[in-house]
Structures are given as structure tokens and as C-alpha cells.
């Protein structure tokens, strides 16, 4: 009885989470342009989508921005996490506090403050400003995930390696990086997805020359989103679903082995 009711409850929650996704996928095959009732099955919008250069360009731009900002955030964030783990220094508390700001304050505030700083420093709004903005909100997440990974790290291993004749560089590439790598990867994955899906920060920090996919969709909300956007979204969803399920299955299997 208890089992049944908990199954029904989680079923309802999942129905709530997945009903809109089902609508996106189903209506990408709908012959009507308006997303109100399903009329006839068609692949028309998938063909239309391939010919929609502005849409595809916006998606390519989103991927470019996400890649560069993730790379920057990973480099800056990993260095910071390692330094903050390893050394005591003045101003550590300040850095820590600044790292929590983008996590805690509403995104709209971060967006408008970045917009103002780009305006006074004469940085034109476009791809560069967008990458800078995305890197800014991604850095904390990389620092936190890498730091979490470091928390159980025993520095005696490094000293042992040094005693056995390893130099600094060998210690870094042979010990430190392999240990924190899972933290770097999950931080990077988080930064990348946050960047891909970001609407609010991008809304303020980019110009007409560098439209992203979420901005493009939002632009067409007022006039009604066309099913070709649904078609592209369905393909993207299918790809992410496959990636997530494969990677999760992998980590589930490896965590089971450890037990």
C-alpha cells in the first residue's frame, strides 16, 4: 500500500516534469504552424529547421560561447581551488565571499551590473562580452566542485613523490591533476550546461551580433514559437539525454564496483 502510493506520487511528479517535454517533441511533428492542436504527422519542420540559418547560427554561437567560457572558468577556477586548498594567505576570506556572490544573488542583478561595467569600460556588447559574462558566473561552480574533490586530499603523497625524486611538474601532472580531474570534469559539465541554457545574463550582456539560442527562442515567444524551433530542441534534447544516460550509467557501474 505504502509502496503503491509512493509510486503514484513520484509518477505524478515525473508527469509534471515531462509533460511539457513531450509536447515539444510531439508538436515538432505537427503539420499546423500553431502549437494548439495536433493535426497531422509531418517531418516538414525538420526540413524547415535545416534551412533556418538564423536559428542554426544562434545555436552554433551558444556552443562557441559555452566552450570558451567553460575553458576559461576551468583554468581560472582550478588554479584558485588548488591555491586556496594549499596555502593560507591574506584576502582568502575576501575571495571566498566574492565567489559566493554570483551563486547567491539573483542573476538579473549580476546581468545588469556586468552590463554597466561593459558600458563604462567601452567593451562592445557581443561575443567577447558574452564569454566574459558567462565565465564570471561559471568560475565559482568550478572552484566549488574542485575544492570538494580536494577536501580529502593528503599532501603527504606529494611529499613522498618529492622524496622519491619527482620534480614539481611531475607531481602536478602525475598526482595532483589525476586526483582532482573528476572535480574538474563535473565543474566543467556544470559550467557548460549553465552557459548553454543561460537566458538572463545573456539578455543583458550581448548585442545583436551575437544572439544565443535561448535569446532567439525568447525573441519569438511573443509572436509564437514555430515548430522548427521545437524540431531543433527535440534533436538537442535527444543528444543530451543520450549523453547524460551513458555518463550516469558509467558512474553508477563504477560506484557499484567500489562497493
Amino acid at each position, binding site marked *: 500500500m505504502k509502496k503503491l502510493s509512493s509510486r503514484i506520487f513520484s509518477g505524478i*511528479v515525473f508527469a509534471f516534469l515531462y509533460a511539457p517535454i513531450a509536447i515539444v517533441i510531439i508538436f515538432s511533428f505537427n503539420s499546423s504552424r500553431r502549437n494548439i492542436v495536433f493535426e497531422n504527422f509531418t517531418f516538414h519542420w525538420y526540413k524547415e529547421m535545416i534551412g533556418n540559418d538564423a536559428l542554426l547560427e544562434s545555436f552554433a554561437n551558444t556552443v562557441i560561447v559555452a566552450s570558451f567560457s567553460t575553458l576559461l572558468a576551468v583554468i581560472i577556477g582550478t588554479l584558485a581551488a*588548488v591555491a586556496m586548498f594549499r596555502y593560507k*594567505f591574506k584576502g582568502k576570506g575576501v575571495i571566498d565571499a*566574492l565567489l559566493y556572490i554570483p551563486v547567491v544573488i539573483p542573476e*538579473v542583478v549580476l546581468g545588469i551590473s556586468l552590463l554597466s561595467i561593459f558600458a563604462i569600460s567601452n567593451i562592445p556588447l557581443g561575443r567577447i562580452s558574452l564569454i566574459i559574462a558567462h565565465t564570471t558566473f561559471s568560475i565559482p561552480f568550478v572552484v566549488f566542485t574542485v575544492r570538494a574533490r580536494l577536501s580529502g586530499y593528503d599532501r603527504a603523497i606529494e611529499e613522498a613523490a618529492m622524496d622519491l625524486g619527482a620534480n614539481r611538474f611531475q607531481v602536478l601532472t602525475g598526482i595532483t591533476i589525476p586526483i582532482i580531474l573528476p572535480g574538474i570534469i563535473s565543474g566543467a559539465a556544470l559550467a557548460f550546461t549553465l552557459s548553454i541554457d543561460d537566458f538572463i545574463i545573456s539578455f543583458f550582456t550581448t548585442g545583436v551580433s551575437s544572439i544565443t539560442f535561448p535569446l532567439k*527562442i*525568447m525573441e519569438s515567444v511573443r509572436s509564437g514559437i514555430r515548430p522548427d524551433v521545437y524540431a531543433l530542441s527535440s534533436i538537442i534534447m535527444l543528444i543530451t539525454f543520450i549523453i547524460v544516460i551513458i555518463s550516469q550509467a558509467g558512474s553508477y557501474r563504477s560506484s557499484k564496483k567500489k562497493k
Partner: protein
Amino acid sequence: MFKSPVWRKKTIPLLSMISPVSAWLILLIALPLIYILIISFCSTNEAHNISFQFSLRNYAKLADPTIIGIYTNSLIISVLTTIICIVIAYPFAYIMALTTPFRKTLMMIFLMLPFWTNSIIRLYSWRTLLGRNGYINDFLLYIGLIDAPIEMMFTRGAVVLGMVYTLLPFMVLPIQTTIEKLDDSLIEASKDLGANFIRTFRYIILPLTAPGIFAGSIMVFIPSLGYFFVSDIMGGGGNQIIGNIISRQFKEASNWPFGSALSIMLIVITLIVVKIYTKSGGKIDELGMS
């Protein structure tokens, strides 16, 4: 001095590792926020340029009835969103924590999957479900619960639904973590001493999992004050939140000083909420997403 071993062993590596992040955080987080604070005390001239003359006009404008109306509406939406998220997320997290490891992993994946896809498109498709000719109205008409289609889109309820839909995972995760950490022997002891489930829940489980509820509430409440795209998509023009008015000052209205004052106000609200959270024993580092 440059040859001293401390300098070589500590200072140089430390500086090279910590300066990029310091520079980035100071230039792109600290300075912009200070700048916002400064221009919130300035005003604009006819050409929408900022004139750097001290005035409290923007803060006086915060007491404008329409602004207060939007703030109130926004706070109501955020409180409702937080409560509904707790009501849905708590049993869900509980079920998740008690089930088999395989099922738990599965539930976690399917909870997070929507989060990896575009939130605007997922919100937008609620229109097909909730609209006048939408499937939910059709269903309610079919079972005879209503006689005529009811307006569900572009209401406050729709905005709350959109917020819950977007933010629910952030409530489930911290609650699930605290339930996971629960010591089963305490629950056993309570049962052995004759307490029924309700008493055990009220005096053992709930107090021990309260930190998760608090952390989740912060992660839901604060973003919901600013997510203006949710109110744009689900609420039409009539159900604006704080994020909408701030965004408008920086885009269409071009009144940055007033927008900055509104932002400072939002920061103050955020700080108060976080302060209440830490005062009641919450930890700041539990607010991340990992």
C-alpha cells in the same frame, strides 16, 4: 629577497595561481556592484545619460504604489513557489532516499534531465497544455468538471506553476541529502518507544531534515524573485515580478540609476533572507548546486 626560499616556494606559485581569479572577481563582480551602488544615487538627464549628482530620488521612487504593488506580487509568487516546492519535493526526496540504489540513481537522472535542456522552450510548451483550447481544459470539459474553458495561462497561478516547474530540482537535492544522512537507529528507537509515524516524523525526522528544507528554500526563493522570463512567458504582461521592473529600466526605459536602486533593494532582500538562513544555523556552502 627574490632568492629567499619562502618567496620561491610559496609566494611565486601562490601569486600565479591566485591572481587570475582575484583580478576576475574584483573587476567583474566587486567593481560592477560598487558601480551599481554609486549610480543608484545619481539621476538621468533628457538624453538618458547618467548625471553624477547625488540624489535620493531613485530610492524615494521605490515607495511608488505601482512599484510596491509589483514587489508585493513578486514576494507572494516567491513565497507560494517555495511552499509548493517543499510540499512536492519533501515526499519525493523521502521516496528517493528509501528506495533501492538503482531506483534512486534512476530517479535522480530523470529529475535532473529536464534541467539539462532549454528552460524557455519547456516553459513555452505549457501554453499548449494550459491554454483556452489546451489539453487540460479539454480534459476538464470532458469529465464535466467545468462547463466552459477556464483561463489558466497569463495568471498569477501560471507564473507560480512556471517557477515551481523551473526550480523544483533545487528543493529536492538538499532535502534528499539530509534525509540520506538520517540515522535510522533514531527512528527505530522512536518506534520502539511507542511513537507512531506522525510523532516520529514531527519530533525526529522533521527537525533533523530541516536544514535541507532551509537550504532548498533559499535556492528556490531568491532566484524566483528575479526570473523575469518565467513571468514573461507564463504571466503575460499582468503578473510582473521584481526581475521584470529591473530589466525594463536597463532595456526599454533606459533609466539605469532607478534600475540600480531597484537592484540594490533586491540585494538587500537577498541579504536579509541569507542572514535569516545563517542565523538559524544554515551554512552558506550548502547553497551551491553540487
